[in-house]
């Protein structure tokens, strides 16, 4: 094994890098939409409960595991997990998830990141000036279609993807100092841009109403977002959605937190650092995330439109059109700030995704930082090209489903079991409290053992048997009345066999059938690629084990006294 001499430059830099890892596009696009869909102001109650009972404990677990593994020279999850339970050899393969998900997610995440980079340039270039709402939406469709170009550049979206991935790789090749520098510049800028847009959203009022949309009002958006609907608290869907949002917003279950924390010293604080990073993410999500997209969209297009169209696409297909209503100067400023904010949110997360692979290759195979970083870029490019080229055939969604959703939940569930039950809560609690700058309430010892795993189990079960249209109450009634459990096409059970897609193919007219059959082919291709990636990493882990970690290996780093 090769020992790493890398360290974080400062404590604030570490917290900002961790917060940057957590703050992503979902803070601005997923959270407000989930809040609107799940009871407005009432959603915040289960959301904050889940943050305290699942989010914070998961952060503590991952930070503890990371710092523990770092003591033995491990900076990625396969051998961090193996070290926590040396008697069972399978943990190192569970840890494969902590590298696999990062490459799988980075492959498509960098593509979204490249859209923000490109749209920032388009905002400066005033590409959206004079376009109506439909034309702005079509602009995006043209942008992701490789046969068309919005700037005159051939393969424009591919070009920006490669530029973006190259930028990530270059920064990663500078090591932790590069990541820390980006976090120290990017996070304050992100918050500054967020403040500007949030103030605009909060003060827009009814000034955006037009004869076509006379009832447009930002207040209506804020009312909908924040008026508590107490009855929604009795709906299991709302709790599951809140738990899911907390889980995905904190970037837990990925292996990035372990990697960052593994560069800490044995007696460095993790208890306070992790809570600070977690709350920074919550600040960005709750304070800024809720004050931008929904109120601005409701302020110009009305709440009815928002309710029908709220979703990820609004960021690229709607917001540029709305910024144009601010006049030529503010349209540029608004566009640069909005897409700049998303770019910084994205790059601070995608940089984190590169570090577990780099840590693993350096620790186990002695690769230099540069070699590890550029190999990450090359694998991510190979994995990402199908998401760019076959974007319209569902490759992107498939990566998101398997690498970006299910893998995370499975890995988080297993790591909680390892930490609280196998490694043991007493040892885990001691690890967590070593060097702590805050006193963690004793009740959390029980939360870590019982509550967090149960909540994760619910999130996992919820994704396996997700009912039709996410209507849990309706599904329970249906089950009680003997009509069975109606499964949604996005439930794991139906997704695994492509049941929804196959049904659509059977029902589709001839012209559309050809497209759907192609989509089925590329869906399976995406799964195959992900499987090959997982097996490849598992093979490297096995090779590293025989090379460095057998009991008689001369390369093993012993525990520090």
């Amino acid at each position: 094994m090769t020992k790493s001499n890398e360290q974080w430059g400062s404590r604030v830099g570490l917290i900002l890098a961790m917060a940057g890892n957590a703050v992503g596009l979902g803070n601005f696009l997923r959270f407000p939409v989930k809040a609107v869909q799940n009871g407005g102001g009432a959603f915040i109650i289960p959301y904050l409960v889940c943050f305290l009972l699942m989010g914070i404990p998961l952060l503590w677990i991952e930070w503890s595991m990371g710092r523990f593994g770092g003591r033995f020279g491990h900076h990625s999850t396969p051998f961090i997990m193996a070290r926590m339970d040396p008697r069972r050899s399978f943990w190192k393969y569970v840890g494969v998830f902590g590298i696999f998900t990062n490459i799988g997610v980075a492959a498509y995440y960098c593509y979204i990141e490249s859209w923000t980079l490109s749209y920032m340039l388009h905002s400066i270039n005033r590409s959206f000036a004079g376009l109506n709402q439909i034309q702005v939406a079509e602009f995006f469709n043209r942008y992701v279609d490789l046969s068309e170009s919005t700037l005159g550049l051939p393969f424009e979206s591919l070009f920006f993807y490669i530029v973006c991935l190259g930028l990530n790789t270059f920064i990663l090749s500078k090591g932790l100092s590069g990541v820390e520098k980006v976090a120290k510049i990017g996070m304050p800028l992100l918050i500054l841009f967020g403040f500007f847009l949030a103030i605009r959203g909060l003060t827009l009022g009814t000034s955006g109403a037009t004869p076509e949309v006379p009832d447009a009002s930002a207040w209506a958006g804020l009312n909908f977002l924040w008026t508590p609907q107490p009855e929604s608290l009795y709906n299991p869907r709302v709790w599951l959605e809140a738990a899911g949002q907390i889980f995905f917003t904190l970037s837990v279950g990925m292996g990035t937190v372990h990697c960052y924390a593994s560069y800490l010293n044995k007696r460095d604080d993790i208890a306070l650092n992790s809570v600070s990073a977690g709350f920074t993410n919550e600040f960005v999500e709750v304070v800024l995330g809720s004050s931008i997209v929904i109120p601005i969209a409701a302020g110009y297009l009305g709440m009815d439109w928002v309710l029908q169209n709220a979703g990820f696409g609004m960021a690229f297909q709607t917001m540029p059109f709305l910024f144009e209503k601010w006049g030529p100067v503010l349209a540029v400023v608004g566009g640069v700030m909005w897409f700049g904010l998303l770019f910084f949110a994205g790059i601070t997360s995608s940089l984190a995704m590169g570090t577990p692979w780099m840590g693993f290759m350096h620790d186990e195979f002695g690769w230099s930082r540069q070699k590890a970083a550029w190999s990450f870029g090359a694998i991510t490019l190979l994995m990402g090209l199908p998401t760019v080229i076959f974007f319209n055939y569902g490759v992107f969604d498939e990566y998101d489903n398997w690498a970006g959703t299910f893998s995370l939940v499975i890995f988080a569930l297993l790591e909680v079991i390892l930490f609280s039950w196998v490694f043991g809560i007493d040892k885990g609690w001691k690890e967590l409290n070593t060097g702590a700058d805050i006193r963690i309430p004793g009740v959390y010892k029980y939360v870590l053992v019982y509550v967090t795993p149960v909540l994760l189990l619910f999130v996992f079960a919820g994704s396996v048997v997700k009912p039709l249209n996410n209507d849990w109450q309706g599904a329970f009634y249906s089950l009680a009345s003997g009509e069975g459990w109606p499964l949604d096409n996005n439930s794991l059970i139906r997704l695994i066999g492509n049941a929804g897609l196959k049904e659509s193919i059977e029902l589709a007219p001839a012209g559309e059938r050809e497209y759907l059959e192609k989509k089925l082919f590329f869906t399976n291709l995406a799964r195959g690629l992900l499987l090959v990636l997982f097996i490849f990493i598992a093979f490297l882990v096995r090779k590293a084990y025989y090379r460095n970690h057998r009991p008689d290996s001369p390369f093993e780093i012993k525990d520090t006294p």
Partner: protein
Amino acid sequence: MNSTALVMMLATMMVVTACTAYFFYKVLKAPVHRHEHKSLPDPADFGQHEM
């Protein structure tokens, strides 16, 4: 904007902001451990095999 939504929004935002500020204040006030033992030799360096 109706008063219930306004109260809910302000209360939530204030609680989240206050907690974030409080924890950052604690971070900035906390003693710096790292530099105390960074200069000391790391026991793991002894008997360490480099590849």
